[in-house]
Structure formats: C-alpha cells, structure tokens
C-alpha cells in the first residue's frame, strides 16, 4: 500500500499477557518511529529506527517494552506483561532519512490497545 500500515487495528488483552503490534512503513522510508497516545493526550515518543544504526530507545517507558525492525522495513513493538496503564493508541510513522524533506513523518492509523 501507499501508506504506513499497522496491525492489529484493535486489540483487547488481559492484564499480564504479552502483545505484539506490527508496523509496515512506506516503501523506501528508512526512518521508523513508534509513538503512544493516551486518550485525550499528546503523542509520546517511544523509539526511533534509522537504517542500520542503533535505535533510539530513549522514550520506552519500561523494560516491558521492546521493538525490533527486521531487514530495515517491518517493525514489531512488543509489550510484555501488559498493565492497564498501557492502554493507548500506538502509532507508527515513517519518513525519508533524517534531513530529507524536513523530516516530515507519515503516520499509520494506529493500533488501539485495551488492557482489561
């Protein structure tokens, strides 16, 4: 597809379970971001991948959160032992390499996670 694709679009999980959220960026985009948005709140940066460089994990809220990006394309965000406060929309975005196009980023529609 032409845009950033995320799956699942909705996920309800029980507290304590692990979840995986997938992001397929725009073809040719080397930069990939994960953000989190709680209800009525702004976007909270989680992690950034750029090509083969080491990811910037500075926004991950705890060691229960991890992400990987395989082959410089698809990314998976994993949340282990989910807690109710993890309930949010998880937004993936991609862009051309930093510095090109002013680093405009293109968002997917998000994965809505509800922990019950």
């Amino acid at each position, binding site marked *: 597809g032409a845009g*950033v694709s995320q799956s699942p679009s909705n996920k309800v999980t029980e507290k304590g379970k692990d979840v995986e959220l997938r992001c397929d960026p725009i073809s040719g985009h080397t*930069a990939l*971001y994960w*953000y989190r948005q709680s209800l009525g*709140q*702004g*976007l909270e*940066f989680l992690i*950034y991948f*750029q090509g083969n460089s080491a990811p*910037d994990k500075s*926004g991950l809220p705890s060691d229960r959160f991890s992400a990987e990006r395989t082959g410089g394309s698809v990314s998976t965000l994993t949340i282990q032992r989910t807690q109710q406060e993890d309930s949010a929309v998880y*937004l993936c*975005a991609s862009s051309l390499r*930093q510095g090109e196009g*002013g*680093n*405009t*980023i*293109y*968002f*997917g*529609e*998000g994965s809505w996670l509800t922990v019950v």
Partner: protein
Amino acid sequence: SQKIEQNSEALNIQEGKTATLTCNYTNYSPAYLQWYRQDPGRGPVFLLLIRENEKEKRKERLKVTFDTTLKQSLFHITASQPADSATYLCALRSGSARQLTFGSGTQLTVLP
C-alpha cells in the same frame, strides 16, 4: 525543562472566521516546526513545515508563522469550514534530536 504548549485545549469559532492556534515552546532551539491535523480515531496528517529562517509559510487557506525570538508559532485557517474541525498538533525537532516532539494539541470546532 523542555516544554511545548498549545494555547488551549479547545477552540470554537464560527464558520467563515479565521482560526488562530498558538504553539509556544521553551528550552528548545528547533531547526523547524511542523503542524499536523488529527481526526478522531485517525493518525496525525502532516500539514505544513516552517524552518527557523522562515517567518511565514502559506498553503491554500493555511498560514503558519514562526517567531524564534518569542519562541512561538501561530497557525491560521482562513475562511474556516466545519470540515476543518479536528485536533491540530504542533511538533518540533531540535538540534541533534532524531524524533519529533509533539504538543498536546488544540481541538478546533468550526460551527456552521
């Protein structure tokens, strides 16, 4: 500490009027600032980018200004329409930071 503040959580205006949204920042030296639109249940969509050496940028009914002395950006929608109703987010990237940092957004409602 670094902050990005958008002037109000909600703004209601009458159709046809100009909407003005404010984004203030502290302890940043942004290379550029961006504005995004977010509709309920959707991801943000890029609207405009303005660089630190630009005072103003226009796109159709949209205008953005950037005052690095005041540390402020204004986002204007002229001849507003109900379809402009959405949440508008400002975002900036400062210096060596690799990610965009977003404000919490202003929810604009244009009343018919």
